[in-house]
């Protein structure tokens, strides 16, 4: 074998292996500095079917999870319905973690008026604080310079820029904000700013946030079948100090996200009702 052929061989092998990979051709398996990126790509959906993971269907806190684990480990609760235990843990999480972290301004909006829910009234999609913890599908596509996050709820798309940029100083605030990210070992770290004011997460943060809210999400895949999110949320208007929320998904390669095609705004229905 000539010296040229020996030099060419590894390149050809690398190209061949790359062509056999499961990722789309444009997807990246490494970051710009050639550190392997963790493979988070694929379709994820509702949590693994365990009592603790179910508690994080929307979002959860370490406080709530510990309380639920204690309830589950108490033999006196073995015959109680799961729903009773999870409601107990949810109340504990609210009383011992969420409410103490809220400012007076944030607490003044707690709980949200369900009849003022703009998703319900006007089919208005969620902002990033609620969307990041949306139940059901999350499809992740990883590329060299960005990551796509595609949600079943609202068929929403987020782009996470990985090219080292900062949020433009003149970037307008939007419901989903502006996201930049990077990899830290096995973790994708996403920082989102420039968010318009909006509602907190379903079930856990039952109040409003301001346009000063920031969200730092950390995604990791501890096993091939499991995706975990730990997020730190900061908002000087609504929160006394940052809060940490968690969520978990199960790998669901057989699922796909369809069009969001039948949302019926309740406000319009109410108008029709009055007109009749």
């Amino acid at each position: 074998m000539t010296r040229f052929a020996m030099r060419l061989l590894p390149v050809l092998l690398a190209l061949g292996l790359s062509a056999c990979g499961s990722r789309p051709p444009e997807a990246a398996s490494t970051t710009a500095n050639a550190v392997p990126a963790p493979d988070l790509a694929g379709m994820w959906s509702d949590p693994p079917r365990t009592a603790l993971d179910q508690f994080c269907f929307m979002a959860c806190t370490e406080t709530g999870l510990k309380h639920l684990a204690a309830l589950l480990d108490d033999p006196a609760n073995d015959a109680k319905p799961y729903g009773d235990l999870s409601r107990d843990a949810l109340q504990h999480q609210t009383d011992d973690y969420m409410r103490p972290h809220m400012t007076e301004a944030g607490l003044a909006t707690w709980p949200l008026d369900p009849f003022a829910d703009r998703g319900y009234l006007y089919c208005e999609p969620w902002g990033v604080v609620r969307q990041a913890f949306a139940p059901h599908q999350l499809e992740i596509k990883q590329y060299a310079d960005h990551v796509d996050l595609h949600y079943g709820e609202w068929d929403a798309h987020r782009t996470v820029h990985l090219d080292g940029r900062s949020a433009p100083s003149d970037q307008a605030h939007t419901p989903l904000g502006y996201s930049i990210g990077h990899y830290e070992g096995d973790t994708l770290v996403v920082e989102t700013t420039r968010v318009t004011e909006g509602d907190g997460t379903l079930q856990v943060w039952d109040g409003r946030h301001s346009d000063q809210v920031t969200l730092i999400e950390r995604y990791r895949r501890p096993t091939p079948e499991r995706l975990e999110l730990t997020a730190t949320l900061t908002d000087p208007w609504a929160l006394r100090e940052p809060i940490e929320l968690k969520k978990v998904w199960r790998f669901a390669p057989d699922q796909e996200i369809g069009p969001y095609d039948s949302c019926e705004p309740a406000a319009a229905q109410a108008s029709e009702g009055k007109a009749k």
Partner: protein
Amino acid sequence: MKPKHLVSFVGAVIAAAALAAPAAAHHSFAAVFDGSKTVTLDGTVKEFRFVNPHALATIDVADDKGVVQQWTVEFDGRLNLTNFGWTDATIRPGERVKISGNPERTGAPRIFFSKIVRADGTELVRGGDRLNAIEEDRRLRAAQRAAASPAK
């Protein structure tokens, strides 16, 4: 109008309540439906739309005098129903069914689905397999706890 086949308002919803809220996630479940009540309709399926964010069915329900009122049944989204093995043919127009669910707070003829009983007696229960898996996980957890405890 009081529907003849509006069988009952049953009290608190079973353990499935813990699973109910996520279903209507494109809006606040509590904004629309009363999770503390269950309504059972006995009627004929007029239409089933297998769509997102929620599948929808219309059911014709007759009252004591035979006057028909149309009810809307809201389900999980198409993709989540697919997880349960549902297709667009799972519920067929013309089929006689008993459907239970949480009623809309406004009193409008609309419920959020929890269970269907077909004419042949077979049932489709929302989230049934997930609930079963969670209970199995609890049994496993209890067994591990018992095994780890020193014998008295």
